[in-house]
């Protein structure tokens, strides 16, 4: 038998080997269609908010900032599989730090954002250093309790929060007009997305994904599980600090009342509904939750439909996320574990010049269940 193999002449690799399937290339029409859709997306993001009323532009800017906050939770929840139920504390402390730096210390806005990011990272370092040795359910509990401490103790420090009336945070020089500030937020979002993307392409980024899958196996391959979890928590805290700082300047003042348990859960919900580990999905999900109230105002038929429920008062913009969010969360957890990110994946691939394939939902196991107890 062995002889047989030896005698067979080695086939020249190029000539007789079956032609490899050509990589899919869209036709001219396909390219044009894709370009049109790209232009549409760009129009919605860049042009549509122009010339709207200040109040509306502020809402769009908030949607962009929520995108940053969603990405911040995604690092923790999606990449290393730990859940923070106290993320409102990180965002809130970022907001107050930035407002304090500008109003009380007279620092420039750029310094303020940098300081907010640093404080967010530092908090995560301290809290994570103390508590990440306990992971899973207990970590969730510790972060939840920390959120309450922020709400009841830290945000009661009058020098930081300016007491009951809140801390003013004027918009930065050159970005006073709402649409300019909106573009600034977009730029920050782009930078954060880029950092996130580059981070996941490094050795540490791949190690993070590995340790989420199975910490023990990862650890036998020389991955320092605790250190990477701490690193992810710090990155998440820093992103949240940036989000908080931008939120402060967007509202031009920060109130201590804003940062409660409900908000922390909305942050988690928007990230999960957006789809863990899908940057685009997370941003869309977060923006949706920031805009729920606005959408309710625009599309009055939703309100009319809800008023048909006997005894139901108006669903105000403040309450709407609290009611709609959990329902979407439960639907996502039970039926669509990949969230929006998984649903839009075929469109995303198509826009990237691939074939439109409805079955291509990305990795199958993309779900919140990646959080390990």
């Amino acid at each position, binding site marked *: 038998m062995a002889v047989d193999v030896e005698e067979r002449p080695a086939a020249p690799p190029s000539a007789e080997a079956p032609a490899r399937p050509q990589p899919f290339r869209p036709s001219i029409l396909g390219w044009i269609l894709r370009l049109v859709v790209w232009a549409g997306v760009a129009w919605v993001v860049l042009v549509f908010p122009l010339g709207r009323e200040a109040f509306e532009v502020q809402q769009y800017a908030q949607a962009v900032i929520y995108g940053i906050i969603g990405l911040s939770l995604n690092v923790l929840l999606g990449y290393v599989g730990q*859940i923070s*139920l106290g993320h409102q504390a990180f965002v809130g402390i970022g907001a107050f730090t930035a407002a304090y730096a500008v109003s009380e210390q007279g620092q420039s806005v750029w310094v303020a954002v940098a300081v907010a990011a640093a404080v967010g990272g530092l908090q995560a370092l301290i809290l994570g250093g*103390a*508590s990440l*040795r*306990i992971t*899973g*359910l*207990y970590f*969730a*509990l*510790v972060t*939840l*309790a*920390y959120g*309450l*401490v922020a709400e*009841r*103790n*830290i*945000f*009661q*420090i*009058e020098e930081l929060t300016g007491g009951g009336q809140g801390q003013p945070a004027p918009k930065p020089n050159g970005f006073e007009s709402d649409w300019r500030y909106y573009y600034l937020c977009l730029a920050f979002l782009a930078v954060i997305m880029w950092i996130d993307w580059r981070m996941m392409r490094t050795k540490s980024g791949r190690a993070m994904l590995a340790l989420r899958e199975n910490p023990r196996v990862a650890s036998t391959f020389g991955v320092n599980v605790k250190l990477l979890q701490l690193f992810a928590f710090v990155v998440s805290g820093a992103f949240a600090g940036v989000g908080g700082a931008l939120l402060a300047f967007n509202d031009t003042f920060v109130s201590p009342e804003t940062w*409660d*348990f*409900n908000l922390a*859960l*909305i942050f*988690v*919900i928007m990230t*999960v509904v957006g789809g863990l580990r899908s940057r685009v999905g997370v941003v869309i999900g977060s923006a949706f939750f920031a805009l729920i109230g606005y959408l309710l105002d625009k599309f009055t038929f939703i309100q009319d439909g809800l008023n048909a429920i006997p*005894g*139901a*008062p108006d*669903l105000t913009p403040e*309450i709407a*996320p*609290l*009611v709609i*969010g*959990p*329902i979407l*969360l*439960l639907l996502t*957890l*039970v039926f669509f574990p990949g969230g929006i990110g998984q649903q839009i994946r075929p469109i995303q691939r198509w826009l990237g010049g691939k074939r439109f394939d409805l079955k291509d939902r990305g990795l199958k196991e993309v*779900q*919140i*269940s990646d*959080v*390990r*107890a």
Partner: protein
Amino acid sequence: MTWVKERQGALVTAGILVAVVVILLATGEKESLVIGVITGSAYGLLALGLVLIYKSSGVFNFAQGEFGTVAVYTLYLLHFEVSYGFALLGALAAAVVFGVLVERIVVRPLFDAPRVTVLVATAGVALLSIGVEIWFGEATVRPVDRSFPTLDRFTVLGVNISDQRLLLLGALVGLAILLALFFNRTNLGLAILGASQEPTATELMGISVKRLSTIVWALAALLGGLAGVLAVPEGGGFTPGVLTTGFLIPAFTAAVLGGMNSLPGAFLGGVIVGVVEAVATSAPIFEDIPGTPGTLLVFAVLLVVLIIRPQGLLGKAA
């Protein structure tokens, strides 16, 4: 020596309790002791439900507080129509129905999902419940009646003990003992423990694990409901999500402190957390802490327990 080793947790607990009592009496904070035990029994009652669910399904139930709030709302609404006793029964029934619904709609579809997924889902249930309460009820403070109007039947160490508080403490002690007996002595209790450890083997013994899960959630909801209707009237009034914002974290701390799988531990932990909070509120050395010092101290207790003794005082190490 083995005797000491086996009972290390209980001995440490006894030591802590004695030390706390001595310090409080010596520093003249004796009111805090009584107030702490009373608020602590509300935490303990809520913690019992948390431990019950953790013991049987390994889930942290963040909706436990809402079981109580739903009961309080039902009590408030029904009391306009019927006498207090019936309203109370209706309130507990509403809590149980809510618990069963949560189990059927949320927990059961996630039966095989990792536990943290279920945690997020129960947190979602809590938020939905709070949202609906604000939507229909507005965020105003509403008064709710006590079961018994007498406010000063006893005076212990200078604090008046109302009948309601006595009832709360009695209910906690009674329920903790009953539940411990239930898990150790009855077939159903043993089946629930079995199902939590070896679901497949339990199924093979001819026991429906899913039905057990429903029973456990109904029981936990009943405990949560009791905590709500007994503890909330003492606070004077209630707002949407009152038990989630005010009681859930101390109750979790109590459960963790006592040991997540120990029912007597939940009771003890509740009392200790209550005393810590009461001392933090009244003792002069904590005056400089901004806001409510109790929250910070409870957080500190939680962190210290998790770092030094993660299995809790009376819990068994996993």
